């Protein structure tokens, strides 16, 4: 069953088109990821279905209820964690939690089981003011606050932005635990590597959805052969590949450069020879599977060309 239906949404701010004909649905109990850079329209979209903004065109249904008409009911079943750190800095950890529990007509005790795995990690600091917490702890508190009324749907706007990669991993582990408890999670992130942790993702850029599918299917749909190339002088490698006449795309990826060719049928030996001719040594070329980031960049290039 689809718990969220988004139908052809348009939203503009003045002359800026923030969202352009957005359409997707979220199934009950899944983790749905919106993957895209800042300014792609993720936050606007979230504000639309948390009933904070009104669309110019199109409708959004949550639990078969129109978000514009039935915003009051929807606000009861939704847990929302906005992108900015939005807790009361001058209230203690416990007071923040208490506050959000009461305004959602719940109590810490009532849903303690749900938040326990997260809250227990910061409970030692419960008398500390929220403003004095470290980034990771703030994030855990914000999540606890969003969960305290046991929402059916959890909406998280860039919960991991600016958080180090280890804390990010921990955070995703928590999300998976929550999924086990039947909570539908809609989460946005600018980190492409987090896409693989979602059940389904929508890649979004400049207000348009580039692709929606399971991460695996998106990766499979990568239209080109992808190679990871490495030589001794990486600098020169990037430079030379950019000049190569058959290069379709070439992007550095950590220690490698990911390369696609313009031609559909070709022998990768050509590239090897080209590099050798340009006096590269220790050349290694491996055919690899595309990751979400490769797909995203490929889709971006296509979008630009259109």
């Amino acid at each position, binding site marked *: 069953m689809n718990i969220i239906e988004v139908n052809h949404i348009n939203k503009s*701010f003045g002359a800026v088109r923030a969202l352009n004909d957005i359409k997707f649905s979220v199934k009950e109990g899944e983790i749905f990821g919106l993957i895209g850079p800042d300014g792609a329209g993720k936050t606007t979209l979230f*504000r639309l279905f*948390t*009933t*904070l*903004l*009104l669309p110019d065109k199109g409708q959004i249904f949550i639990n078969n209820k129109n978000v514009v008409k039935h*915003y*009051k009911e929807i*606000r*009861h079943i*939704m847990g*929302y964690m*906005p*992108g*900015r*750190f*939005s*807790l*009361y*800095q*001058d*209230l203690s950890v416990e*007071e923040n939690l*208490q*506050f*959000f*529990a*009461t*305004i*959602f*007509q719940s109590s810490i005790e009532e849903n303690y089981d749900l938040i326990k795995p997260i809250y227990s990690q910061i409970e030692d600091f419960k008398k500390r003011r929220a403003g004095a917490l470290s980034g990771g702890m703030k994030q855990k508190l914000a999540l606890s*606050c*969003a969960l305290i009324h046991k929402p059916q749907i959890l909406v998280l706007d860039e919960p991991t932005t600016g958080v180090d990669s280890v804390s990010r991993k921990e955070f995703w582990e928590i999300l998976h635990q929550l999924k086990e408890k039947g909570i539908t999670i809609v989460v946005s992130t600018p980190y492409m590597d987090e896409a693989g942790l979602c059940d389904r993702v929508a890649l979004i850029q400049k207000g348009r959805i580039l692709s929606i599918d399971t991460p695996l299917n998106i990766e499979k749909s990568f239209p080109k052969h992808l190679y990871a190339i490495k030589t001794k002088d990486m600098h020169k490698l990037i430079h030379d590949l950019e000049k190569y006449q058959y290069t379709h795309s070439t992007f550095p990826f950590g220690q490698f450069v990911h390369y696609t060719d313009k031609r559909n049928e070709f022998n990768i030996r050509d590239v090897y020879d080209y590099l050798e001719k340009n006096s590269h040594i220790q050349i290694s070329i491996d055919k690899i599977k595309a990751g979400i980031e490769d797909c995203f960049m490929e889709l971006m290039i296509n979008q630009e060309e259109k």
Partner: protein
Amino acid sequence: MKAFLGFIKKEFIHIFRDFKTMIILFGIPVTQIMIFGYAVTNEISNVKVIILDNAKDEISRDIIHKIEASRYFMIADYIQDPNDIEAYFKKGDVKEAIIFEKDLEKKLRKEGTASIQLILDAIDANTATLIESYTSSIIRTSVNEKYSNPQLIRIQPEFRMLYNENMEGTYMFVPGTMALILILISAMMTSISITKEKELGTMEILLVSPLRPTQIIIGKVIPYFFLSFINAVIILALSYFVFDVPIYGNFFLLMALSMLFIMMALSLGIMISTLSSSQQSAMMISIFVLMLPTMLLSGFIFPIDNMPTLLQLLSNVVPAKWYISIVKKIMLVGVDFQFVIKETLILFGMCILFIGVSIKRFKIRLD
């Protein structure tokens, strides 16, 4: 309801945790009253007095002697004709005329009561009150020595406000300070506290929560209503007990109308918060739209009558003008409600207007 109470509790925590703001909130009115109070109540000395002695008996001579001996007074002249008093006052250096009625002692003895008239120059009404009280106490001491009952004598002070008929600009610091502080706390603090939530992003969560917008607004308003009210009481208590500013009218009427003014200021604050998206702009609007007009156009510092017509017209939309008028009339003139109906209705109307605009503008959404 529980959610609402939780919200109010949170608001109080915000206020009490922010120690600096608390100091400012309660410090400003106290210091302001102190500064104004002490600036005008310098101790008096060598005040020039003229005397019209129609009695010329033992008791009048005793009183005159005592006044002459006091370091507070200096007898400038003895006059025969009451019509001369005006001329002395106009010259400016004489502040008081003491008029003893005929057969003072005889009346006291036979009828058990007599009266002494004091005429005071009330350009500086504060000093005038002081002079009046010093003179009265000398007179009563004298009567007491002779008849062991100071109440026999009726002292009739008459404030001749030659240039200042309505006591403008003197005790004015009390109503003025009240208006300013109440506007400041109610309107500025509420608008800042609401915009702060917008800035922090917590407003997003509040809006997404089942808490209704009206509950959010009322929850924001209640703590500041209390604070303002306490401040009003502090200001009145300070002026009454420390500076002897009189409250001639009904204290409860005064407090009730102060609450109306606070309500008006709070709704104004909410309206400002709906117009601004940051604490900074809320602050700027508060200062330019509230504080400056309250100080400059309300009659607090500059008398409205002396303003150009345009500013006089403009002063009508400054809520503080009407409140100051109410406080002045009730506190210093001592009138009943019927004399402040106009002002009350105007404030009430403003209150309704601001609440209306706020409700219309306060959104259940973000844009």
